[in-house]
């Protein structure tokens, strides 16, 4: 597959002061730190890295993945080598590429989130942080913060104290009132919100009579969750004044346009990368082709066009 950077001219945008040549990211945990990606990463608008904790995490026992119709369940448990190895071994590989690097940050406690942001903030290759208060696969932290507007806001405030770089917050669909959480983190200083993380789910094997995943429950992703994600982006984008980055089951440029029309300024391709390593580039290319066909010089006019943004 060969795509020239020059092919992107109509779909550039800006989020938190970061210029993106196109509005497409690889979502956290679906492209690592770009080290195995089979194309020039500079073809993407950006990458959200694998979730990074202060110390190395081993992740959950196997099986960690299971298939469901039009999607998958995962309970990886945020296996990662910790912030020191990330800074020393993984972020330098991204320096050669021209794209936005957004480090996904995970922690079990407020202090763990703050430590990662403080440690990595001086890295020149880090453009922004994505604070992950929504992973369903760790026993402490993660989702526990993301369900509660006050707790999520406290994580953001703690991180805000130690960096001047943009803080994006990844929101969970596993809460009754995602708008309240979004409003909470924006008040605490978030520069953007990204959504959705996976939807809690479970499979049970009738033969063994046990859960399929060793962890019991996991996170549902893929096209199966897309309507949930579009609806949440639509609701949140109408409620907050910061940019929204939309994700959840995007496979094609048409899928990405749903999110943009719902109110997303940029999008991320996640599970589709696992099936087709070139999926995110294909979405970016498809958006450019759409803009050309429609005679648009920018997609910005489409952001939120499916509904009035604020009453």
């Amino acid at each position, binding site marked *: 597959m060969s795509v020239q950077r020059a092919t992107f001219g109509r779909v550039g945008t800006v989020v938190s002061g970061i210029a993106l040549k196109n509005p497409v990211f690889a979502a956290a945990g679906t492209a690592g730190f770009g080290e195995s990606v089979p194309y020039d990463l500079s073809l993407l608008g950006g990458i959200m890295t694998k979730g990074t904790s202060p110390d190395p995490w081993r*992740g959950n026992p196997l*099986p960690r993945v299971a298939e469901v119709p039009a999607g998958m369940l995962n309970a990886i448990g945020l296996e990662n080598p910790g912030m020191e190895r990330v800074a020393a071994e993984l972020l330098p590989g991204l320096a050669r590429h021209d794209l936005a690097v957004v480090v996904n940050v995970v922690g079990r406690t407020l202090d763990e989130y703050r430590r990662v942001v403080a440690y990595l903030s001086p890295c020149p290759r880090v453009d922004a942080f994505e604070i992950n208060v929504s992973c369903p696969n760790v026993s402490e932290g993660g989702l526990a913060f993301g369900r509660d507007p006050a707790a999520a806001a406290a994580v953001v405030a703690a991180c805000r104290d130690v960096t001047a770089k943009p803080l994006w917050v990844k929101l969970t669909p596993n809460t009754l009132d995602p708008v309240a959480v979004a409003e909470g983190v924006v008040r605490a200083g978030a520069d953007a919100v990204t959504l959705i993380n996976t939807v809690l789910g479970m499979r049970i094997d009738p033969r063994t009579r046990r859960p399929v995943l060793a962890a019991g429950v996991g996170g549902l992703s893929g096209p199966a969750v897309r309507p949930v994600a579009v609806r949440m982006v639509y609701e949140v984008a109408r409620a907050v004044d910061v940019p929204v980055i939309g994700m959840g089951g995007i496979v094609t440029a048409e899928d990405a346009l749903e999110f943009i029309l719902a109110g997303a300024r940029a999008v991320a391709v996640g*599970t589709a990368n*696992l099936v087709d390593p070139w999926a995110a580039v294909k979405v970016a290319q498809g958006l450019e082709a759409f803009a050309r066909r429609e005679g648009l010089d920018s997609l910005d006019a489409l952001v939120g066009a499916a509904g009035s943004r604020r009453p």
Partner: protein
Amino acid sequence: MHQGWFPVERCHRVAADVVELSVHAPALARSAQPGQFIGLGVGGEAFALLRRPMGVSAIRGERLAVSFRVAGAGTRWLAARRPGDPVDLLGPLGRGFPDLGEDPVILVGGGVGVARLLPVAERARGEVMALVGFRRGGQVFGIERIRRAGGVVRVATEDGSEGRRGVVTELLEEAIAEGRPGRVLASGPRALLRAVKGICVGRRRPALLALEGQMACGWGVCLGCSTGGLLVCRDGPVFEAEAVEL
């Protein structure tokens, strides 16, 4: 690594429960090595998103084949492909068996795992002894290909209906006791690999094990197949026996 749709050349049963799917896929076949695997997309009733990781079972010019046991809706859909039907392939994936030059090898395979050893036998330039085990006689496959390639084959079946009654690790113990030289290359169920590792590490016999793993991606990003910090898909699926936890 390549991804694309390629036409099926042949899809047929090679044993009671094993299907071989052969595809005209020049880009993949030219770079594939024995021990590597391919991610196959499935459609139809399975309505499935994730690819099925399957070991390469033949590499011939612009063609390659995978072999699999029909286990569910996805593999049933694949088994129903006919010549000319397009299939969605991603690969070759992972690190396969190294080129052993003219060194002798002892291949140890169990069940459908035997399939991954067939291209090794066909490419080997040294002496090949293949020890293969199955539950029943009707499941036996691959031995003619190994013999045609010049290999010596010994078969064990658990019900004794073909070859020796017993399990393949007994054949390995015997071959080593006979003084048969060579590195051991094994492919099969986890229990077989564990037993092979036990036998070989105890006798300081170098061994390479071809693992299987449950994975969503096959190219090193989902971390579904992580085992002791190594990824079956990226660091394997072929590992030195001492290097891997089983």
